[in-house]
């Protein structure tokens, strides 16, 4: 599965303030300063389908997660502190998260890891009804930015009103679990 075939190509923009490297989906009006990265390393395209998840009303789902599980909601406990340290935790490659079933269709993202860092998050599929598409259009860039910014050496967190998609997080974490497992297998 090549990311270039995905309808929403991610783009990398180097921001002014803070020189933080963030990634967002290209939308009209957003300046694109550099375009997408190349992918090195193994490509993993594992898809598994979970049961339906309730949209919008989900409560905590991770209370039974153990440190060794592959729960989608868990970034492994050894995930460490800075971008530099985090770099050692993900093996380069493209990882497809599980398809999370929403009432209107499946939601699935793909994470691209390059140089040990998440460099792109691509929406592979999203529900097709108008309402959730609109939500996804808004939520995905913010979530992507947060995912990238959180591993940046310059920024630990991003503050902003967010309309986040649980399905996005679930699918992304599943992808990152694979990236981490690949790193551990290679270490």
């Amino acid at each position, binding site marked *: 599965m090549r990311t270039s075939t995905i309808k929403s190509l991610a783009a990398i923009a180097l921001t002014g303030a803070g020189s*933080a490297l963030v990634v967002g989906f290209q939308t009209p009006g957003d300046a694109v300063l550099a375009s997408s990265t190349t992918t090195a390393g193994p490509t993993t395209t594992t898809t598994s389908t979970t049961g339906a998840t309730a949209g919008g009303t*989900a409560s905590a789902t*991770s209370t039974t997660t153990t440190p060794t599980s592959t729960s989608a909601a868990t970034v492994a406990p050894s995930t460490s*502190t800075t971008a530099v340290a985090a770099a050692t935790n993900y093996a380069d490659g493209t990882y497809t998260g599980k398809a999370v079933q929403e009432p209107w269709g499946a939601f699935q993202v793909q994470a691209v890891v390059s140089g040990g860092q998440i460099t792109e998050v691509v929406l592979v599929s999203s529900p097709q009804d108008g309402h959730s598409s609109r939500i996804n259009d808004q939520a995905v860039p913010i979530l992507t930015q947060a995912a990238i910014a959180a591993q940046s050496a310059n920024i630990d967190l991003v*503050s902003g009103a967010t309309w986040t998609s649980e399905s996005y*997080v679930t699918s992304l974490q599943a992808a990152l679990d694979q990236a981490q497992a690949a790193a551990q297998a290679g270490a």
Partner: protein
Amino acid sequence: MAHLVAPTMGTTVSIDVRDPGIGLDVLERAVGVLGELEARFTTWRPDSEIMRIDRGALLLEDAHPDVREVLAACGVLRAESDGAFDAWRGGHLDPSGYVKGWAGERAADVLRDAGATSFSVNIGGDIVCVGEPAPGRPWRVGVRDPGSATRIVLVLGVRDGAVATSGLYERGVHVTDARTGEAPTTWRSVTVLAPDLGTADAIATAALAMGDDGPAWAARRFACRVAAIDGDGRLWTSPDLEAARVA
């Protein structure tokens, strides 16, 4: 050292603990607390305590102590904001402008009680920072441009404090001035740095709702640090915010 991302309260929480001795089980407990609070405070389920109070099926004195605490705090904020923040809007009870931040502090309490001294809790972009992520440096909190998800307008260095942003760039218009019922126009987002997240969240919402003078008023009235961004991406900051800026 542990990091957990989980869905909660209609958004996503990310908990990042840097203390070496804190395991994932502690973070899971914190997320569990958020789940309990969500069930109690949600306005999306008719059987929540908030909705039962709203329709008169539950007396405040019979409500859970958490509910009484939150509604009392909302009452204080309503008075202090001259009504710009009001948990009763349009005749219905909706304290969610305070609850999310307050719940974030409750989750932080779980971590503190377990001995954590260096962590952050980020609930949908509203953030509690405790200690330092690495020796000698603060948590670096980027505030995004409301007009572009790929641009950070400023970066705040925060050691012990909370950062909340209220904005009009998502969810459509979900903030209205409680006094007029009208949506504000001047500011696209207001960010407040305050000692606790419940207060920061409520003040950010109130300041945004008040319109033109809201951010300056909030900074004066609550002695908190404020940054506001308008529709053209221009930044206004309260004088003492600059001390917290790292970029």
